[in-house]
């Protein structure tokens, strides 16, 4: 490919992959059979120029490739503060990646679409939450691929043969013991997001192995964990003993080796971590925001009965960010209608962090997403209250923040 026989785009992509192989210290490249491209996020002229340069050179993906969120909801942006110039450029960037033959999934939760990889499959994924989910919850194998490299891997079908693609580097390193964290707290729908936020901060470079989970968490709780841990930290792989596929036992999670380090997590630590996710101090509320990572069908199913027959307060916006596919499935399942009747808006293909949607008068947010809670204060200059899904609905109805603290106080 480096000699240009597969065309100038493959040549350029391979030159970047080859230079990165040196950076990673890889002596060889290996094949992948799927890619997920996060380079889709439009930031400005540089991301657009990169995409259009590849497309103009005739780039084609060599393996099935899904696309992460873009910078614009093509159909819905006019309802928001997005400028026409931004919308036009972000749409051009979308088109460039579509022209390369990637599937227009436009979601940060590709693992909940037909792009879901298999256990052991070698893939090259971008998007921090998706990397952590694919590695940990599914047992597929990807390094932590950054924007601009993910598409080069997709075009060449090759990656440096290092790190989490191999078996040994997937062994757990940090033992995280939950100390007396009661079942009732583990069942709470905020628990895994809070635990992920905490472990992201504490794990550093190490692969954490969590011991002491006594519940069978639904997939969306593990999704929340992955997104939180990959936001507050750099977790690309975690093992939960008895839950994730490479951790049937502690010994298996550590591949028979001794942990490099061990920490204990108490209920008090979790309370502190949960408190950190809230940066607002009053009960004022401008907007409830759900869906980072993108809201799933199961999450729509959980939301529908909570909002049925109710109505969001006139002063409060209620936004769900999701994918085209999930919206369609929610509609078919009959769980979209009650959400819309409640007064919710749905944004597709993007999210409030990737598209400049929010009008400046939106100052205070409430969310059940640790990822939104982590990034919104810095990226959007807003203050955030973190709460459960039910708290978010109740607060939207009342027009001000209301949280049921009972599980967290008594635990």
């Amino acid at each position, binding site marked *: 490919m480096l000699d240009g026989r597969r065309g100038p785009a493959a040549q350029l992509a391979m030159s970047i992959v080859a230079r*990165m192989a040196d950076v990673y210290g890889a002596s060889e490249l290996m094949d992948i059979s799927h890619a997920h491209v*996060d380079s889709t*996020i439009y930031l*400005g002229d540089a991301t657009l120029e*990169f995409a259009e340069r590849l497309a103009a050179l005739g780039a084609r993906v060599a393996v099935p490739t899904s696309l992460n969120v873009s910078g614009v909801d093509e159909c819905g942006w006019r309802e928001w503060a997005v400028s026409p110039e931004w919308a036009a450029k972000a749409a051009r960037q979308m088109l460039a990646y579509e022209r390369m033959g990637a599937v227009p999934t436009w979601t940060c939760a590709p693992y909940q679409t037909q792009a879901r990889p298999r256990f052991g499959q070698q893939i090259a994924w971008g998007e921090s939450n998706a990397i952590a989910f694919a590695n940990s919850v599914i047992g597929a194998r990807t390094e932590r691929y*950054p*924007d601009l490299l993910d598409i080069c891997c997709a075009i060449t079908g090759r990656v440096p043969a290092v790190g989490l693609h191999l078996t040994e580097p997937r062994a757990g390193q940090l033992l995280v013991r939950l100390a007396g964290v009661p079942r009732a707290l583990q069942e709470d729908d905020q628990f895994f997001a809070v635990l992920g936020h905490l472990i992201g901060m504490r794990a550093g*470079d190490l692969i954490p192995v969590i011991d002491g989970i006594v519940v069978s968490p639904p997939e969306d709780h593990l999704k929340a964990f992955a997104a939180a841990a*990959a936001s507050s*930290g750099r977790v690309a792989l975690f093992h939960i003993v008895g839950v994730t596929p490479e951790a049937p036992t502690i010994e298996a999670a550590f591949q028979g080796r001794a942990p490099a380090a061990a920490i204990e997590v108490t209920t008090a630590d979790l309370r502190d971590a949960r408190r950190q996710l809230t940066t607002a101090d009053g009960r004022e509320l401008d907007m409830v925001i759900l869906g980072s990572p993108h809201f799933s069908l199961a999450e729509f199913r959980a939301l529908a009965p909570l909002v049925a027959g109710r109505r969001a307060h006139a002063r409060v916006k209620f936004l769900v960010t999701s994918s085209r596919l999930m919206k369609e499935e929610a509609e078919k399942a009959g769980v979209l209608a009650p959400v819309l009747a409640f007064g919710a808006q749905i944004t597709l293909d993007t999210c409030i962090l990737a598209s400049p949607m929010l009008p400046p008068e939106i100052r205070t947010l409430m969310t059940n997403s640790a990822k939104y809670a982590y990034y919104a204060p810095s990226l959007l200059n807003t203050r955030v209250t973190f709460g459960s899904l039910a708290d978010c609905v109740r607060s939207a109805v009342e027009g001000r923040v209301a949280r049921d603290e009972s599980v967290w106080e008594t635990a």
Partner: protein
Amino acid sequence: MGDRVIAGRAVVPGDARGEALVANEPLSFWGGYDFQTGRIIDRHHPLAGACAAGRILAVPASKGSSTTTAVLLEAVRAGTAPAAILTTGVDPFFALASIVADVMYGKPFPVVALTVEEFATLQTGMWVSVAASGLIRSTADGQPR
């Protein structure tokens, strides 16, 4: 304290000089760096509010979002990127951003990997020069030599 010389690993080679901006916390550029201004905006980060444009940024590693690389590429294009980035160990994200900045704009920035002990000798305000070999000179009084 006099000059100090560190032999780092030039992950992406290049020359740069400037005032050091140092922290012991990893940084996500997405949600952490405003490429319009070169300012660090992650409120969870000790360097929040500091301007890194044209300075020698020393952080142990990247963290968080995969989009860190794209933000850095935008910063290079906008002229608001750090003059060089020093890390503990090799950070592929910073290296990639520099390599793509080279491919797209012919403007790579040096990325140098240090040991934890070498990194610990750096302090904000030092004057630092980075050579293509990975050699780093720092002077504690913040004066160019």
